[in-house]
């Protein structure tokens, strides 16, 4: 993706001069709108962060805080390392690890099976190609949310509840990735296969030595999208993990709201906000740092 601020000072300056005044006013308006928009996006999470640095009594009395408090170490320490639950094994760190495994496992699993399936569909003369295509793409019709009850029973009956496999596999059972790689492989020039065939390369060799390397950027882009998707899963992990040591950090967020609704204790607002900040940090950092891949992945995958 090209950077949008590809300024060309030479051309622009010649144009700017005659109506500099007008441009100035309109650019002030433009910047104001963008700043307001940025604040609208930024404020909620920023305030979650500032609030998370106060102790819960202050928050309880005064609500969300804009200043930075002195409880940063305490709240984040507690959110990350304080063990809760009967088995005393689940802390923020464990939940982060589980989220990481879910995010990476989901992304890698999805990419591997979709690359293979898309390869089969695009590059092979297949008897049941159309049938396979439709079998796979019908899955786009039905999000996990609407078939969640029977899915839950299937995973249970395989004894896969509270396992990473049970957590990840049902989420992979859709065609989004396959669809994306199919589109991409279709755009790869036919000459490549012909050349490879002439060189005597078989299907395996072509896939590993040629197709995968040229798909690298695409894979990276789709990896980021899938990782964020997996990390942010909510309903499914909430149902399928009953063992505290298997909780993901987003599942942990649910415990916060339940405690809030039950009202038996003064909610630990500071720690809750700290946990919320910890939960959004990894995917946000990935999206921000690998922005160009992320944008590419999003724009390409949703097409």
């Amino acid at each position, binding site marked *: 993706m090209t950077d949008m601020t590809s300024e060309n000072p030479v051309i622009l300056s010649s144009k700017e001069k005659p109506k500099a005044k007008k441009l100035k006013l309109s650019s002030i308006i433009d910047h104001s709108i963008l700043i307001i928009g940025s604040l609208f996006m930024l404020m909620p999470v920023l305030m979650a962060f500032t609030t998370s640095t106060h102790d819960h009594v202050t928050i309880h009395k005064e609500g969300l805080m804009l200043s930075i408090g002195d409880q940063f170490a305490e709240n984040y320490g507690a959110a990350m390392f304080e063990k809760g639950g*009967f088995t005393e094994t689940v802390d923020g760190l464990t939940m982060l690890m589980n989220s990481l495994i879910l995010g990476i496992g989901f992304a890698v699993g999805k990419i591997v099976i979709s690359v293979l399936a898309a390869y089969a569909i695009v590059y092979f003369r297949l008897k049941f190609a159309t049938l396979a295509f439709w079998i796979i793409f019908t899955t786009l019709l039905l999000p996990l949310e609407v078939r969640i009850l029977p899915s839950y*029973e299937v995973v249970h009956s395989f004894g896969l509840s509270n396992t990473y496999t049970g957590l990840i596999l049902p989420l992979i059972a859709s065609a989004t990735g396959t669809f994306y790689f199919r589109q991409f492989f279709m755009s790869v020039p036919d000459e490549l296969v012909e050349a490879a065939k002439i060189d005597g390369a078989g299907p395996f060799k072509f896939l590993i030595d040629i197709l995968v390397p040229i798909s690298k950027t695409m894979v990276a882009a789709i990896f980021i999208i899938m990782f964020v998707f997996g990390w942010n899963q909510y309903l499914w992990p909430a*149902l399928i993990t009953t063992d*505290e040591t298997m909780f993901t950090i987003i599942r942990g967020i649910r415990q916060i709201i339940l*405690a809030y609704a*039950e*009202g*038996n204790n003064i909610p630990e607002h500071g720690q809750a906000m700290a946990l919320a900040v910890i939960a959004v940090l990894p995917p946000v950092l990935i999206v921000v740092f690998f922005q160009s891949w992320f944008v590419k992945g999003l724009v390409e995958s949703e097409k």
Partner: protein
Amino acid sequence: MKFKNIAAAAAIAWGSVASAAAYAETEITWWHAMGGQLGETVNQIAADFNASQNDYKITPVYKGGYEETLTAGIASFRAGEQPNILQVFDAGAATVIAAKGAVLPVQDLLNENGGNFDINDYIAGVRYFYADANGKMIGMPFNSSTPVLYYNEEALKKAGVTAPKTWEEFETKTGPALKAAGYVPLSQSHLPWIFTENFFSRHDLQFASDNNGYDSTNVEIKVNHPAIKDHFTALKKWKDEGIFGFYGASWGDNQKPFAEGKVAMWLGSSGSFGGLLQTAEFPFSSAMLPYWEKVTKSPKQTFIGGAALFAMSGKSDAENKATAEFFKYLTSATAQYDWHKATGYVPITEAAYELAKKDGHYDRFPAAETGIKQLSLPAGEWTKGYRMGFYVQIRDVMNREYGRILSGEADAEEAFKNIEEEANKLLSRFADTTS
């Protein structure tokens, strides 16, 4: 389903290796819905039980709210992975008890495992709520609570009133005085439980056909009663006059303003006592659930609420024995007294109640005795409890319609007609699931 068998075999093999290593302890699991301070107490009970002997080990697992715990238990049962003990709340009792074969009646379980079960050991108010039509106890009443009125002693002193005995007194005296003193006089935390189910019990009114639903699944709800419609009409009026506050449908929404000192009186559960001791920064006490003098001159006892422990079927004899041992431990006078002290849930046996009295617990905390006193009031014809299927959804319907009454979207007449119609539809659906 070959895969399933292999997995199961592997699990069994692994299980036997693991248990052989751990001094042949029989391990059982207990899924519960006790969060926060209550959850800590549950963990303590389990730890104490594990420390008290070497043969059994229980692991409690917090499964979220009551509804989630029930659903998780059902789904795991269907998949053959049920826990040994499942905590099921009052509204879910019909679902579990109607599914014959899902649970081992606690009465049978204890008798088979050498615990001489006598239903008369239990206090009168808890004996039959989780029993079948013949009076056999199916679920072990665990956290048994009843709605009580908590009040901020400072606020009442400031307003120069005492806790109201009747709603008439609240309407004409307590409410206006507390309002004048600068408080929101009253809030409550569970409209279906406190102002519906227990309303019928307190005033000894029939709640459902077929013996409040105990005798059949072909049951019709009798909720559309003039007395309760008047009550909700009054509630709306009180809300408009500023003597009743409604902060949302979740429990904490309404408890919070009381704990913060904004609301002077709060109708909650006797089981909220332990939590309030930690959160409220003012002296508080409790009184019985008020009643309408115009409806009855002799108010009766209330139903128990809270939840019971059910022993799930499909477990080995050794594990069932462990479950029975845990139940015996749990119903011992000392364990019950500890639980009662820590949480405010009522002790379920006479022996535990006597122990608490003897130990002077109620001299130190008079508020802790309100619940059990209320449960020991004279019984009426309709105070045993109720048994209705899909009751979780029926409660959701009630909550919705009550929300509409209080926000002025509907009057009591319309709302109760809706509740009656939708509840009866749900009940007939439930009846058809069991046939």
